[in-house]
Each structure stands twice: as structure tokens, then as C-alpha cells.
């Protein structure tokens, strides 16, 4: 019987000939990611009463949620993690100088087609961009993986989103993700694996696939997945941490739902406070004043995002009543952005740059808004209090919409300041460390 990607991979990893949706299976993941929460996880691990990790090489730990440490409590967490890493001989440890965990894992070849990956972070779905089965789990579960190497999964139903057509100018993958969310709502893919396929999906760059699979969790998905192809294999050449074997859905397999999206029919979208699925066309809310623009997070802070931002800001100043906080997704992205002059452009336009990491996305530091203030963010969540102040409001949109909004001080359609894609692509092709991003 034809099977979906998730069914095939979970059968393979649980040693069964086949599995069906709803079945509970136990697997050993190839990668178990954790971040600053490793401090709490290591304490839970100690409570289990096992001395040594089942396999230290499964674990990848990245410090990113509050880097550098904002206060003594965060600093102690980081210290505890460094000690734990040393004691347990964990090789894959990325300290505060690397960037956001999801970007760091992608850049360093940890995300591979056909692998099973877990993370004590809801945005672990991001790794589906590489054709991995990647699902967010809880803190305790990573502690149990540390002790036993095992994790349970309910085999998910699979939903297929078929992507065709081409974006109009000013419309991006972020707008597509928001449009899907507006359509199927925040629980539209609950418990499901979401497979993004179709001719348009295979034209997406690695960065664009990462954005798409990152946002899958906001639809309720267990895992996002883009069937891997040459774009992924090329990216992984020379950096893949392990050998890999891609897994694909069989022709004729059973999808619980299929959705068709024509990229050419989309316009710039924005998620309004306080839910990710309160999605409207930007044109409906344009003109609304914002005090802060944040370009960062695991959704949209890669080199292509910063390129769009810089091209909008070139020879311009941001609005005098608006702050612009830019946090590159990783140090690698930041190095490239510096070489290409993007950081210079952001600073010259009146923006600020902070250390690669999660920044103010979940309200830990570096840009928590004041009461009554509105923030337009390129991140993925706008829940009440998300950025650290329940009396503030957060809007979610693409980097282009964010950049134009920073210039005008009001939520603005990206069409007001178009960018030259040919020029951007030429610049990106000269990037030394980051992969070329195509469009």
C-alpha cells in the first residue's frame, strides 16, 4: 500500500514493516536539539538517575535564547550547560557566538533528508526544509532521550499543500505561510504532517523552505516537509554530518486533505494582534503607526531577508519615531551581511544591530516593547505578551513589508519601495559563507 513520507520514515525507525496514522511508535532520533533549556533538561536527566548519556552524539546544543546572558540567572543557566556538555562529552555544542539554533543546525549540516530529528523547541519543524521528519518535543522528553535514546510519536496523518505559480513583486514565502494560516487557521494542521509540494516548492531556495517549514508549527503541524531535491543535495555537499538517504511519499498515498495554492494570486499579508491566524492583506491595515520594527528570528533573518532590508534602506533613513532592531539569524549570516555592506546600510539608516540569537522574539531581552507600543516583526508569533509585554501589540509580516514600514513609520505595502531582484541575486551569489539564495 502506498505510504506517506512520515509513515515510511517512522516505520523504518521503529523497525516495523509498516505503520498507520494514529499508531504510537518508539524511535531513536538521529538528532535531539536543545538550547538554553538544556540547563533545565540536564536537571531532569539527573532525576532519572542515569549517569551517562545513551549516545552523546545524538545531542546538538545551541545557546541562543538569551545571548549574551541578560542577567545572573541566564548566565548561571549557560554555565550549567557548559559544564554538562563537558562532563557528558557532547561534541555538538554551539556557544553564544553562533546564532539561532534552527539556523545553526541548518548551516552546519545537521539537518539531513530522511532523518528523524527532535528538538525541545516548537519550531523544530523548520528542519523539514531538508526532507527530515522533525518534530518539537518537550523538555522532559529530551531528558528521556538522553537517558534511553527513545521517544514516542503518534504516526501523523499527512496534509498536502500543492504550490504552483510565481510570486508577484513584493510577495514572499512569509506571505504564503501567513495566507495558508489565514485560510486553515492555527489548528488547521493539528497533529498532522504537512507536505509542501508542487512545481513552486521545488523552485524555493533553502532559506525559503526554512521559512515555510518554520511556520508549519503555527498551523498546528507536527512536522513540515518539502521533498528534497538538487537544491538540498547541493547545499549539503561537504557539510553533511552523516550519510543520508532521502525518503519520499509514494505515488497514490493517502492524504487527509489537499490544498492548492497559486502563488500568483497572493498579495502581501500581515498577522494582526494577538493571534497568528488573524491574517489580513497588508493593504487593509496600512497606515497604522508602529513604534518598533524587528527583523530577526528563526523565520526571517537570513541573508536574503537582510538583502531585501538593505536594498529598501539604501540611501534612506528610517522614520524618526520608529526604532528598527535587526538581529541576523547567525554569525555566518552576519559576516556575509557585513561583507555585502548590509550592516553598514542598516546602521546608516538609523537601525540597530544586536548579537545573532532569538533577541526579543519571546521577550527575553534586546527590544521588549513598552506598554501601548506596536511592533511589526518578521518573527512567527504575536500572542499577547509574546515579546515580553502583554500591553503591547505585535504584527507579523515579511522582511520587505517590515523594511518599508521602518522607513515610513506606518504599516506599509512593500510595493511603496520595490527592490531590484536581479541586483540582490548578483550580490548573494558573491556571498562567501552562506549558500546562494535563488529566486
Amino acid at each position: 500500500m502506498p505510504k506517506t513520507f512520515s509513515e515510511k520514515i517512522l516505520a523504518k525507525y521503529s523497525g516495523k514493516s509498516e505503520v498507520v496514522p494514529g499508531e504510537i511508535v518508539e524511535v531513536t532520533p538521529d538528532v535531539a536539539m536543545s538550547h538554553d533549556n538544556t540547563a533545565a533538561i540536564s536537571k531532569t536527566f539527573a532525576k532519572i538517575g542515569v549517569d551517562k548519556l545513551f549516545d552523546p552524539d545524538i545531542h546538538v546544543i545551541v545557546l541562543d535564547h538569551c545571548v549574551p546572558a541578560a542577567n545572573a540567572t541566564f548566565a548561571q543557566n549557560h554555565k550549567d550547560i557548559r559544564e554538562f556538555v563537558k562532563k557528558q562529552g557532547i561534541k555538538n555544542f554551539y556557544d553564544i557566538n553562533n546564532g539561532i539554533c534552527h539556523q545553526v543546525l541548518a548551516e552546519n549540516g545537521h539537518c539531513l533528508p530522511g532523518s528523524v530529528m527532535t528538538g525541545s523547541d516548537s519550531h523544530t519543524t523548520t528542519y523539514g526544509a531538508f526532507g527530515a521528519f522533525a518534530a518539537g518535543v518537550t523538555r522532559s522528553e529530551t531528558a528521556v532521550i538522553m537517558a534511553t535514546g527513545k521517544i514516542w510519536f503518534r504516526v501523523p496523518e499527512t496534509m498536502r499543500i500543492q504550490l504552483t505559480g510565481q510570486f508577484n513583486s513584493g510577495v514572499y514565502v512569509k506571505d504564503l505561510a501567513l495566507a495558508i494560516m489565514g485560510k486553515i487557521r492555527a489548528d488547521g494542521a493539528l497533529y498532522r504532517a504537512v507536505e509542501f509540494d508542487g512545481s513552486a516548492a521545488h523552485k524555493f531556495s533553502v532559506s525559503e523552505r526554512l521559512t515555510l517549514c518554520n511556520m508549519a508549527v503555527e498551523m498546528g503541524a507536527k512536522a513540515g516537509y518539502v521533498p528534497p531535491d538538487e537544491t538540498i543535495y547541493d547545499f549539503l555537499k561537504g557539510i553533511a554530518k552523516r550519510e543520508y538517504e532521502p525518503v519520499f511519499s509514494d505515488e497514490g498515498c493517502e492524504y487527509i486533505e489537499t490544498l492548492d495554492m497559486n502563488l500568483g494570486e497572493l498579495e502581501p499579508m500581515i498577522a494582526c494582534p494577538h493571534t497568528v491566524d488573524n491574517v489580513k492583506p497588508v493593504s487593509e491595515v496600512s497606515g497604522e503607526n508602529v513604534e518598533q520594527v524587528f527583523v530577526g528570528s528563526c523565520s526571517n533573518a537570513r541573508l536574503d531577508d537582510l538583502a531585501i532590508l538593505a536594498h529598501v534602506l539604501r540611501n534612506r533613513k528610517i522614520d524618526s519615531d520608529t526604532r528598527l532592531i535587526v538581529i541576523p539569524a547567525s554569525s555566518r549570516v552576519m559576516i556575509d551581511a557585513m561583507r555585502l555592506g548590509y550592516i553598514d546600510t542598516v546602521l546608516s539608516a538609523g537601525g540597530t544591530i544586536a548579537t545573532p540569537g532569538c533577541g526579543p522574539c519571546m521577550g527575553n531581552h534586546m527590544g521588549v516593547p513598552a506598554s501601548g507600543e506596536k511592533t511589526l516583526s518578521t518573527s512567527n508569533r504575536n500572542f499577547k505578551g509574546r515579546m515580553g509585554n502583554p500591553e503591547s501589540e505585535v504584527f507579523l509580516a515579511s522582511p520587505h513589508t517590515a523594511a518599508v514600514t521602518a522607513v515610513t513609520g506606518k504599516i506599509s505595502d512593500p510595493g511603496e519601495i520595490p527592490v531590484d531582484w536581479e541586483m540582490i541575486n548578483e550580490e548573494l551569489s558573491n556571498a562567501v559563507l552562506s549558500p546562494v539564495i535563488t529566486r
Partner: protein
Amino acid sequence: MTLDSLSAKVNYFYCELLYVQKQYKREKTMEKVIKGHVWKYGDDINTDVIFPGKYTYTVNDPVEMGEKALEDLDADFVGKVKPGDVIIAGKNFGCGSSREQAAVCIRVKGIGAVIASSFSRIYFRNGVNVGLPLITSCEVQNAFEHGDEIEIDFEKGEIRGKNGVFTFPPFNDFFFGIIKAGGLIPYTRKRLGI
């Protein structure tokens, strides 16, 4: 061995002992029937309003976590919730972050169960793992108001209130095994024979 490190070790084993004792008691006393009042909320109650993200790395003690429960959703909750009370919500309860504190914080405040028409998947895992019973039901939302009395019989699979008795299917054996053990950690210890 210095006095400090000795005292740290003693303290560690004492904490361990308390932890094991607590788990043991919880398992022995896991109630088959709970009784309390209803806290009623809407759809898409996310983990940022259940347990604000800004506390995720600074509040590490479960009792303190309880004091932050539903801070950005319902200011009355922490002061007034009683053991055995039940949260009834709409769809997609617990969406958003994977933070375990969002399940722990209401558990330590005494919430005996959450009933929702659906749960976000990571929240469901967290609920099972911390021993918080989560019941999926689309029937009870209209039968209970905020503050109504409610009784849940886990063995019979019944929710009782002024508007009648509603049934829910028994928990999956696998999940119930974890909940009965007091959560994932005691369950794992048992499995490993520790």
C-alpha cells in the same frame, strides 16, 4: 572533600529523596474522581498567556511557576483556583511554544484536568508527561459556565455537572500508563528499573 561540596551532595540526595517520595505519594493517591469548579476560556489559548515566555529561563521552581499561571489571560486565576478545579476551553488549547511550564504551572495550582475540543500536540505531550489529564470533548463547552461545579470520574469516563452527564473515551493505555506513573520521568525510572 570540602564541607561545601559535601553539603551540596547531602542536599542533592535529600532533594532526590523528596522527589521520589512525592512521586510515590502521587501515584498512590492518584484520584479516580475529582471535584471542583470550572474555569472557562475560549479557543486557541496559547502558551504565552498560560506561562509568559519572559519567565521561561528565570522561573525554575514549580511552585513559583504556579504563581505565574495564566498571568496574561486571567488575573483572578492564581488567587482563586482550588485543587480539583477544571479548565474547559475550546479548540487548540496550548498552541505555541513547547514550554513544559505551561502544563506544570496549572498542575501545581491544583487543576485536576483540562477539557478542550482539541489540544495543540506539544501541549498534549506536556500534559501526559507531567501527569495532567487532558480530555478531548466538544460536548461540554455549552453545558458549563465559568464557576459551575464539575465532577470527573476518570475510571468511568464521565464528566458530571448541572446539565447532565457527559462521557469521554478511556485514555489510551500507553498515555494512561505514563499519567498513572505520575508523569514521564517516574515512568522512565520504572522502565529502567531504577
